[in-house]
């Protein structure tokens, strides 16, 4: 083993240059040329200001916006500099109590919402940065937002339908709505009354 240390060291250094420096830099160069938007993080810019990334969820606190899922990142929800999950055990009392509290909170915020509470609105995502809701999760919030913005619920449901992405090729993934995109459009079409 000792006599192998010399070729091992030399080979490791050569492969570090190849796989650790040349490879990522070449990929970076090509990516920046071919997919500049994605390579920089799919940022959404409005009025020369970065308002977020298409792919990264964020909190919306006011009742006039669609709310994202609960997020377990620390120290605050949707901390995109430190992703995280609750890792709550399914039989943990504190976790079940927390979900109960979220259900009560949602019901109180959305008194006119029909049907059962969509699961994702009361459970925290794996990343803490989930950008999506299911269509049901967005529709659940429609009566509240429609009332606040003074528009018809039907119009708002139309907006959700318009922004719903289906399964890729009809097979992969789940139908979903990007909350940030939806809220940006919401503010554009029907600004909140001052």
């Amino acid at each position, binding site marked *: 083993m000792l006599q192998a240390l010399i070729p091992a060291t030399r080979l490791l250094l050569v492969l570090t240059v190849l796989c650790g420096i040349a490879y990522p830099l070449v990929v970076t160069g090509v990516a920046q040329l071919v997919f500049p938007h994605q390579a920089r993080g799919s940022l959404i810019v409005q009025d020369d200001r970065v308002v977020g990334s298409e792919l990264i969820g964020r909190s919306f606190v006011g009742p006039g916006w669609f709310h994202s899922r609960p997020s377990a990142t620390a120290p605050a929800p949707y901390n995109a500099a430190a992703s995280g999950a609750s890792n709550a055990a399914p039989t943990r009392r504190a976790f079940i109590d927390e979900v109960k509290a979220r259900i009560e909170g949602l019901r109180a915020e959305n008194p006119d919402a029909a049907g059962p509470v969509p699961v994702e609105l009361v459970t*925290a995502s794996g990343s803490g940065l989930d950008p999506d809701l299911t269509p049901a999760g967005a529709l659940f919030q429609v009566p509240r937002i429609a009332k606040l913005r003074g528009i018809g619920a039907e119009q708002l449901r139309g907006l959700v339908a318009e922004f719903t992405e289906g399964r890729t090729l009809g097979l992969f993934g789940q139908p979903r709505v990007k909350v940030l995109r939806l809220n940006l459009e919401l503010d554009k079409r029907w600004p909140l009354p001052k």
Partner: protein
Amino acid sequence: MTTQGWLEIALYLATVTGLALALGLYLAQVFQGKPTWATPAAAPVERLIFRLAGVDPAQEQHWTHYAGSVLAFTLVGILLLYGLMRVQDWLPLNPDGQAAVAPDLAFNTAVSFATNTNWQNYGGESAMSYFTQMAGLTVQNFQSAAAGLAVAVAVARGFARRSTRSVGNFWVDLVRAVLYLLLPASVIFALFLVGQGVPQTLGGAVVATGLDGVTQSIARGPVASQEAIKLLGTNGGGFFNVNSAHPFENPTPLANFAEMVALLVIPASLVVMFGRMVGDLRQGFALYAAMGVLLLAGLAVCYGAEAAGNPALTHLGIAPGGSLEGKEVRFGVVESVLFAVATTVTSCGAVNAMHDSFTALGGLVPLVNMMLGEVVFGGVGSGLYGMLVFVLVTVFIAGLMVGRTPEYLGKKIEAREIKLAVLSLLFFPLSVLGLSALSLVLPDGVASVGAPGPHGLSEAVYAYASATANNGSAFAGYNGNTLYANSLLGLAMLVGRFSVIIPVLAIAGALAAKKTIPPSAGTFPTHGILFVVLLVAVVLVVGGLTFFPVLALGPVAEHLAQASGRLF
């Protein structure tokens, strides 16, 4: 469970199998030194690398030298990576100003990446500089996978060769694994991922100001280049804390499907390569069938449990559809389950959902997959050589039943080989159960447990099973970043890696030295259904029964509690 879900699972397995067939035949060409379509481009680079490294590619190695080279290469890999992390604050490409990594965490991480485990006791975006991610972690992602592949090739040669003292040249096998497979595949896959939305930039975190005026700092980096090899090399070490659940690591369902294919395809192809190298593809297909059966069994249980959801939640009057705690909306239940099973039958350990929040039975499956010793396709290389150990035990047991000296692929399997095989099988439960037990007794170990009740036991056992099996996924409520856990988990990874590599190389050496005997009427055929059934039974009995008591106390007890509405 839905038809759409099963359809996607079927498409997944068909895609992996189709690609594995083509790739397996290609890899057999590469490692038998025959020309391939890649040779004109790769051969000059290969020669240059050998010259720079001072390696004579024509020199064949005895198994002891081969093993010594693997050990030496892993050792210098650990030292270099450890050093990089300790001084990363002085090095370039650190736009977010990460501090030097603490010694115990750096030890754990260096061992973790060099042994192809990729257990992570840190969040990448808040602990590692871009330079460390690229020149440190990415490099070991390549090298640990290539080393595992090399060992598998040496073992295949042990079966294929006769009356010789050598099993190949480690340096040549290692470099070929990188140049002919891992590097070109990673370039293509990385660019595909960027197209799907995975960032690839040297720019630091960007601050976004939302509609409500609230700012959000969004971590980025050279993610795609690391993501590609993380999956292809069954490494599993994420750029970000939450791994492939992070929208920047795994932005779309299509990217997710491709990532799942990438993490299984090379281990699957090595089984085909093995069949070709020993001159009988049916032998490879028999192993493939045994692995496939074990994968599907786990998948059915896990999917059923997660689709049914957590009874404690369904009683609260929320919409049916399974628990989404720790899962992402874009993947839902089926793609989270499929990823969890694929990542734990292989030794990948990347996750797109948090296993710790799975239902009791849903979480049992990833744990059992690892406890079987990562032989259901397993890691790049390690899955094949691990499964061959079980094959030797199976033919031995079959031989005992009929009272004949066991044979496999024309080689007599004698006392030495069986002793070595059993030795490698014994270290695994010893490390998993011994270190878990110790960590559940010592206060320093107990401090890491996050969940109350039987789930707490599952968390600790999961950690040591994951480390020893070189998987790297976690029940992440377990806090591994303590001096105690960093040290013990690091030890478990080393034991898990080398307690198999050294015995299997010794077996390869012993087999290569033997003559090949032609099959006779009394030879037990190892390509038929009977053999597949026996092999599956041996894997389940040896792997499963050893761990049955601890599983009963952990996930099974939790399942019974869950069914009766008991909380902790």
